[in-house]
């Protein structure tokens, strides 16, 4: 506990140093960059709040929070054994709490501040924002971002910052210490989530943005980023006792289905909300999200049916999530035809990643964070480049060429994979040194809920 609090302090100081460096470097005139999603809108004259756009974006924010609480928590919670169900719920809930506070204190500023950025210039500010908006200083009810209140924009983006570290916890479920989890994910949040978010969405001068990467709702920022961190974590934390020998079966499949359903519904906020407005782009994002998800679920079902004769509930749910992940970066540019392609492709790739590949390589990614978010994210990011083509019914950006776009997408994937991988490794090493990564063997046997949280999930006796 004490070690943990000390670390939080350290983290904060660390970030400050980094940012001071950033500010020092930033000698060019600051450019008033606008974020990706709000770009179009901002092109028009004076910024004014549009009530329709605001209505949608408040709703979208609620939907994205709903994805984590309770959506993801349930999706994951049902997949673990009864003795560990609370660890997963607590981890998601605690991250929602702490990340929110960090977001207010420095996160938003580090992710979205545009001091020192200039179109076409790669400098420190292409990777990190700074601390000018710490404590959201200067944001009032009258502050406007595009056509919506800035407070809504900040909260909307916050819900993305919450779900991303929460996604990772599925990889090392059922064995990692709660304190180690916090140290690791918060370190990773500061040094991988915030910069990748900045690179992708902070506007002119940001790395991916300047490259022209298409990442409408967070393929790199959210899914590849989390998927890689999950892969690294599950390898460094090690396998669960009994992995490969016993059936470590889901304790409550209906809970998982509820969670997957909530993810599906909430994802409309994630993708259509990334238009930052209630317009045609949002509408098409809604449609393609639905189509890709449904296609992926149906495809996964068929794969299982063909291979084992039994389409499973967990399979359908996993397929749906794979589709949701893969359509995420593409949801602003793909059309219905592209959505069918992305949905089917993601189901096939994730299916083999989470089954054949995982078995072959032998790592214990408990809830397939890498298999679904990592692989689905990469498949989606690459296909985004292809499905933006108008030949496939997409809405390409100006100057689009399929080959070039594919290559650009690939570059951003590679940077994200390496960046997240390195930061995750460092974060885990840090956690290991401070508190150790794993619970003792007896605790793993008797369940983490009791030892880590002093509670049991269920008391069925009357």
């Amino acid at each position: 506990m004490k070690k943990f609090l000390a670390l939080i302090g350290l983290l904060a100081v660390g970030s400050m140093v980094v940012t001071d460096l950033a500010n020092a470097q930033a000698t060019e005139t600051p450019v008033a960059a606008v974020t990706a999603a709000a770009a179009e809108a901002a092109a028009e004259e004076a910024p004014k709040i549009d009530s329709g756009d605001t209505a949608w974006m408040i709703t979208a924010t609620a939907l994205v929070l709903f994805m984590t609480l309770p959506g993801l928590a349930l999706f994951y919670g049902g997949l673990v054994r009864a003795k560990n169900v609370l660890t997963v719920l607590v981890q998601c809930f605690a991250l929602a709490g702490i990340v929110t506070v960090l977001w207010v204190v420095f996160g938003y500023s580090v992710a979205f501040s545009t001091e020192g950025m200039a179109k076409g210039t790669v400098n420190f500010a292409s990777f990190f924002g700074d601390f000018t908006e710490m404590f959201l200083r200067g944001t009032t009810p009258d502050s406007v971002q595009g056509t919506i209140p800035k407070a809504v924009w900040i909260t909307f983006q916050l819900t993305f910052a919450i779900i991303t570290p929460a996604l990772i916890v599925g990889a090392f479920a059922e064995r990692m210490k709660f304190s180690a989890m916090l140290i690791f994910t918060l370190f990773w949040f500061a040094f991988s989530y915030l910069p990748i978010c900045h690179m992708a969405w902070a506007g002119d001068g940001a790395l991916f943005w300047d490259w022209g990467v298409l990442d409408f709702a967070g393929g790199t920022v959210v899914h590849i980023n989390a998927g890689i961190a999950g892969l690294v974590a599950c390898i460094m934390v090690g396998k669960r006792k009994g992995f490969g020998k016993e059936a470590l079966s889901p304790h409550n499949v209906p809970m998982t289905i509820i969670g997957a359903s909530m993810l599906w519904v909430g994802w409309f906020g994630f993708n259509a909300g990334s238009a930052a407005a209630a317009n045609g782009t949002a509408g098409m994002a809604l449609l393609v999200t639905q189509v890709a998800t449904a296609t992926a679920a149906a495809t996964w079902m068929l794969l299982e049916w063909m291979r084992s004769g039994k389409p499973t509930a967990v399979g359908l749910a996993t397929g749906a999530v794979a589709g949701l992940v893969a359509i995420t970066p593409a949801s602003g540019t793909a059309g219905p035809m592209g959505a069918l392609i992305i949905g089917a492709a993601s189901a096939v790739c994730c299916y083999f990643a989470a089954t054949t590949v995982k078995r072959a390589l032998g790592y214990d990614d408990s809830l397939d964070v890498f298999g679904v978010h990592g692989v689905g994210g990469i498949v989606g990011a690459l296909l985004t480049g292809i499905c933006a083509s108008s030949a496939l019914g997409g809405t390409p950006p100006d100057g689009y060429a399929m080959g070039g776009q594919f290559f650009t997408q690939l570059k951003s994937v590679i940077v994200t994979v390496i960046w997240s991988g390195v930061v995750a490794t460092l974060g885990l090493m840090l956690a290991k040194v401070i508190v150790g990564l794993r619970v003792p063997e007896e605790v793993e046997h008797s369940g983490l809920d009791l030892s880590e949280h002093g509670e049991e999930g269920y008391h069925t006796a009357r």
Partner: protein
Amino acid sequence: MKKIEAIIKPFKLEEVKDSLGEIGIEGMTVSEVKGFGRQKGHTEIYRGSEYTVDFLPKIKLELVVADGQAEGAVAAIVKSAKTGKIGDGKVFVSTIEQAVRIRTEEKGEAAV
């Protein structure tokens, strides 16, 4: 007194209870158990990995009866629990030395 323990298929419970009722036995205790035996388990699938579940859901019935009733009770159970398919279960009989009805503190056969 004899204690009869029977492991049966869950869907047979009502039938067994009724056939015991017919021969005048109206006290018993039931629990949910998992059985392992010749009846092969089933395969469950979890994200493409198949694994075998050896334990099958069964119902365990426990009833303590007067010595004279034991044979009839066993027969009633066997008759009503039988489907003829593997996994129908077992009946075990053992001796109980003392029985007490908590409410009245009656002892012995009066208590069961």
